[in-house]
């Protein structure tokens, strides 16, 4: 790693700095999607074991975020959005961050293995490796397809959750993986459109910097056109029901409308206009809400199916 930042001789980081290395917001999303994967899974697990498995998955996600920050400290130092992170700001040494990340990664994999099964643990280890090495070290600085392929790392948690319950992965888990995988490009490219100068300064080949604004807007629309029908698959497969169908329908329509508007009225080939900037921000924000509501609907339907026996038909798997 070629960091331009002079590391401090002694650690001056607070506990909060170490916590922020784990990217808590990403961790919360991982816990949420992994929980849905566990609930949708066709099997049962003791609630205490399930909670410990979720904790291990969350810590594993935090470890990969920490290793990502360790590797990307030089990029973070020149981007406005990330220059105050603990390593580029000089509050935590790179060696500390690397050691912290590796200990957490090994600990999370070990705990998941002894709590559930070693297939789930191996899956978690692979996910950490995928994010820290395949995405951060290799893809991020070398190809504009970085977040398309790297998005798999963020899409694995529901499958890990299911693997923790059943020891394997079903079509339902695979569909949840596909939804997050296809959601990632429109979500991140909407941000990259607005922050393209920031990424260019850091030398990260995000799609708008490589192929231009217009092509990126078109690709956002194309990915959204694939994402919206794929997001309805749980309904056809029986794991999603009325509430999920409504969210997938209305939310999908909202995603399509914003993606279409961004493509049609977002600006010219070289830059975004005012409508484009506004719509890109809206798409970025709405995509988070869309994914959250899709998984919340699944969570609600499956949790309700467990709590109300009469609605058991809508539940595929239980935590008890």
């Amino acid at each position, binding site marked *: 790693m070629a960091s331009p930042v002079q590391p*401090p*001789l*002694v*650690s*001056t*980081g*607070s*506990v909060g700095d*170490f916590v922020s290395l784990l990217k808590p917001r990403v961790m919360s999303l991982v816990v949420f999607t992994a929980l849905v994967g566990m609930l949708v899974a066709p099997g049962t697990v*003791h609630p*205490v*074991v399930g909670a*410990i498995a979720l*904790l291990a998955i969350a810590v594993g996600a935090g470890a990969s975020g920490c290793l990502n920050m360790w590797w990307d400290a030089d990029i973070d130092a020149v981007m406005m959005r990330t220059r105050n992170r603990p390593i580029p700001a*000089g*509050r935590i040494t790179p060696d500390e961050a690397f050691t912290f990340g590796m200990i957490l990664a090994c*600990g999370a994999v070990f*705990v998941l293995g*002894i*709590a559930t099964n070693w297939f789930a643990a191996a899956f978690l280890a692979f996910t950490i490796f995928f994010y820290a090495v395949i995405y951060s070290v290799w893809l991020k600085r070398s190809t504009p397809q970085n977040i398309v392929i790297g998005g798999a790392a963020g899409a694995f948690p529901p499958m890990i959750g299911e693997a923790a319950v059943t020891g394997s992965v079903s079509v339902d888990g695979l569909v949840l993986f596909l939804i997050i995988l296809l959601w990632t490009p429109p979500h991140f490219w909407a941000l990259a459109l607005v922050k393209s100068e920031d990424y260019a300064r850091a030398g990260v080949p995000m799609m708008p910097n490589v192929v231009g604004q217009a092509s990126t807007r078109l690709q956002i629309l194309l990915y959204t056109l694939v994402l919206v029908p794929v997001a309805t698959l749980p309904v056809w497969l029986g794991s999603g029901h009325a509430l999920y169908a409504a969210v997938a329908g209305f939310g999908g329509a909202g995603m399509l409308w914003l993606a279409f508007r961004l493509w049609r009225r977002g600006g010219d080939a070289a830059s975004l206009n005012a409508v484009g900037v506004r719509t890109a921000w809206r798409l970025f924000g709405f995509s988070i809400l869309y994914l959250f509501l899709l998984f919340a609907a699944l969570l609600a339907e499956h949790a309700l199916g467990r709590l109300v026996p009469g609605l058991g038909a809508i539940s595929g798997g239980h935590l008890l």
Partner: protein
Amino acid sequence: MSGGATHGKQGADKTVPAGAPEGVRLSPEERRRQRARNVAIGLALGGLFVLFYILTIARLGSNVFNRPL
């Protein structure tokens, strides 16, 4: 680096009194943070202890009674 730590002879003329042993000196704020980190590590280790205990009991389940008395 934030805070007022000095390292070896570099800042000796500013913060290290004459005759005092040289080395890394932490400012009160850095010392407070160090103590907080130590407490956090202690709590994490204690939490792991509790986690393994609870996990063991949960995995054993009713089998915990399945033994000769």
